[in-house]
């Protein structure tokens, strides 16, 4: 099996590795990088438990090879909290009881975060469609939707107010 040298940035830190051509990105993340917060729940790109961000977009890491991430910026659930402080999306899931067994949660948060980065003020319908590639068996989604709405509110209020443009006299 041929091997490839890959270089990427993972949660802000540079990473280099020799990987087999066929190594899936999710196995690279879990077994080579030992970042086990990203999970595997199916083999058909259906459940979304493996969702991570590659170059700012949500991708299902079970359906990509590690080599396809070469040169990219990868963000996993381990990269969400900063200095021990939960990020708004994590806080939303905690406050609104958006998780139970926790297995789908990392992928669910990564999909929701990708939505909020593109659309800071989504409707409930938009949230439901945005997470429809992520299966949850425990929560019935009601509180996940609330968690995403909570995060949307928090993220909006944490954006610094735009300064009014200077008016020349």
């Amino acid at each position: 099996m041929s091997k490839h040298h890959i270089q990427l940035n993972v949660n802000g830190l540079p990473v280099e590795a020799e990987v087999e051509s066929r190594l899936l990105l999710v196995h690279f993340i879990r077994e080579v990088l030992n970042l086990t917060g990203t999970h595997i729940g199916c083999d058909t790109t259906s459940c979304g438990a493996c969702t991570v961000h590659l170059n700012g977009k949500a991708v299902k890491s079970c359906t990509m090879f590690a080599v396809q991430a070469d040169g990219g910026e990868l963000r996993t659930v381990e990269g969400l909290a900063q200095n021990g402080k939960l990020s708004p999306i994590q806080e939303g899931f905690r406050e609104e009881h958006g998780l139970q067994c926790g297995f789908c949660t990392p992928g669910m948060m990564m999909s929701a975060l990708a939505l909020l980065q593109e659309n800071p003020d989504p409707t409930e319908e938009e949230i439901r469609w945005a997470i429809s590639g992520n299966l949850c068996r425990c929560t019935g989604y009601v509180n996940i939707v609330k968690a995403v709405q909570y995060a949307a509110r928090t993220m909006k209020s944490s954006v610094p107010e735009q300064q009014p443009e200077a008016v020349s006299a």
Partner: protein
Amino acid sequence: MSEIQGLGHSRKRVEDMRFLQGRGNYIDDIKLPGMLYLDIVRSPYAHARIKGIHTEKALAIPGVLAVITGETLKQFNVHNMPTLMSDVQMVLPIEAVKYQFQEVAGVLATDRYTAADGVAAVVVDYEPLPVVMDPRKALEPGAVRVRDDKESNHIWHWEWGDRQATDQAFAQQDVVVSQDIYIPRIHVSSIETCGCVAKWDPLEGHLTLWMTTQAPHAIRTVVALVTAHLGLSEEKIRVISPDIGGGFGGKVPVYPGYVIATAASIVTGKPVKWIEDRTENLAADSFARDYHITAELAGKKDGTLNALRFKTIADHGYTDAAANPSKFPAGLFHICTGSYDFKNAFVEVDGVYTNKPPGGIAYRCSFRVTEAVLAIERIADIMAHELGIDPADFRLKNFIRPEQFPYQSALGWEYDSGNYAAALRKAMDMIGYESLRREQAEKRARGELMGIGISSFTEIVGAGPSKTFDILGIKMFDSCEIRVHPTGKAIARFGTKSQGQGHETTYAQIIAEELGIPADHIKVEEGDTDTAPYGLGTYASRSTPTAGAAAAVASRKIREKGKKIAAHLLEASEDDLVWERDRFYVRGSPDQFKTIQDIAFAAYTNHPPGMEAGLEAVDYYDPPNLTYPFGSYICVVDIDRGTGEVKVRRFVAVDDCGVRINPMIVEGQIHGGLTMGFAPALMEEISYDENGNIHGANFQDYLLPTAVETPRWETGETVTPSPHHPIGAKGVGESATVGAPAAIVNAVVDALWHLGVRHIDIPITPPKVWHILKEKGAALEE
């Protein structure tokens, strides 16, 4: 000081901090030095003789270390294992396979990719044999015999109630209704599949088994019993359930993969990991339902129910491996008289072998309660419609009345408490029942299809009292052990195992309520058989009724000792002490008190002469009765005449689970349960073709609801405490899964009744409805 956060607090969950940061420790996250990987060769046929297993090509692959077959395991006499229902299940076959995707051989390799290469390289010679997939055909003379070691495909006959009296009652009543109801095979599909890491230490003769199990203690004993001849001994077996990514009953059984991995570790002396993929999980793990029910009711023209008679054929697959309590081959199906006051009832079930995987009860339900509820709520609705009585009025007329509790059912259960009419009336108020009926009439006049469905369910959970409930002889108690530390903080350990229910949060709240120690200072542990007290585990909504009760009783034992210590410290008589919240004070002098923290410190530093030091207690709680949660659900559907699609417009769920420990968590459980009731009603089914090929062995064919299909649940509550549970709680994890399907089906049939539709079997898919609409001339076509 931190807030106590006892009963009734929507305390944020303790376990969330690790799950939210990717720091959960699920089975596939466990990585040990030198660990090997097991992957499994599975049968493409539903029934075939094995003529040969050729392993040479697989063994030639660098990194493949061994191929384990039935013959390998036979040397250790572990090629078969006993099931919980006294049947036999193959771990690996010697002669024949009996269902598609059955385990045929295990490949052991240095990593998971190489193990999969090895699986692909094993060549098995099969001689395909005829199959029988329909249990009704399996009972016909001359049917293909599934089991060579049995006389026929009939496993057992079970019956309950008074047949003669019921038959007589049927003969004497004005109205008899009958309906065949098929409840198809479904699968729990927790998002985490099953797996284990087995680590045999040859020097110590010690086995550690990390395993996705809902019942670690029972597993340890089973392993000890079936391996005693190999020299394994129970004190040298440690089972650890790590974080579990959803269970719902699917992680109760022992699957062959666990046994093969354990055998592989013993043979190689290295840790061995086995993790299922999704297809293996769907195609070979425990299923639920597969009940062919003929339901009959008899009563009077005014709608008064009198008698119930259910006859059922139960498809168990190739062996009876249902994880039931031992004395209940059909589980608790005899709760099927439901919420109604029947004078006479009789139920019979016949278990049958077919060429399907074994299992039978795993889908978020207390042993066949969903089958019972769906059948009674469907047939009751049919009777109401046939008599032209509003289904709500019909239910209100026949409910067991509040003053009848404790109520002795015609099938022998003693319902602990209930107020069924209150729950239904609340649901009707919440949804605006009367105005919905008016809207329906107007729409029907315009040719639009709208339906309103009710389900007023009664559950039976918390197995169970030791006089009738055991698994392989082990009584179904559960346990809690509490140790209060000198500084007044505590650790509590339990025989159960959370799979998302939030035990680390809620158990602490029970103890906080009882002892006044802030919940934040009570650490909860479960899942390690070396440290936790023995218990039967978490399933069938039993954690709160059993281990939750044990937490309260163990706390009270601590309080009793605490009282003696407080009396010593206050130089007062025990009789003069009063407990309040977190302290004992002297009656009449509330400023003379000792808090639980004072008492805990004294227990280690200044305990009374003659008293043992320390402050701890353990309780093995044997429930005096089961608990009977109930509720009323109302569903409104609109049916698209152009596509057959059923849209759940509103769904109101009023649940009564007794006293609520953590309302936030209870509501979350109900949301999830409703979604797992919605799923089989409209989407999920495991079916097979006539050759035994499975339909639905991946998430593209087996459809779990996403956020888009799932309705926006509306919830309400009534509170009728359980009179026999120490804190009045009943359990809630499964109520909604049990109660929801009937409300949805009843709504769909209600929308179509005027067209002559009496019943539709679940799942009610758009094609099914479309064909019915076409047949009835109600479809909108181009």
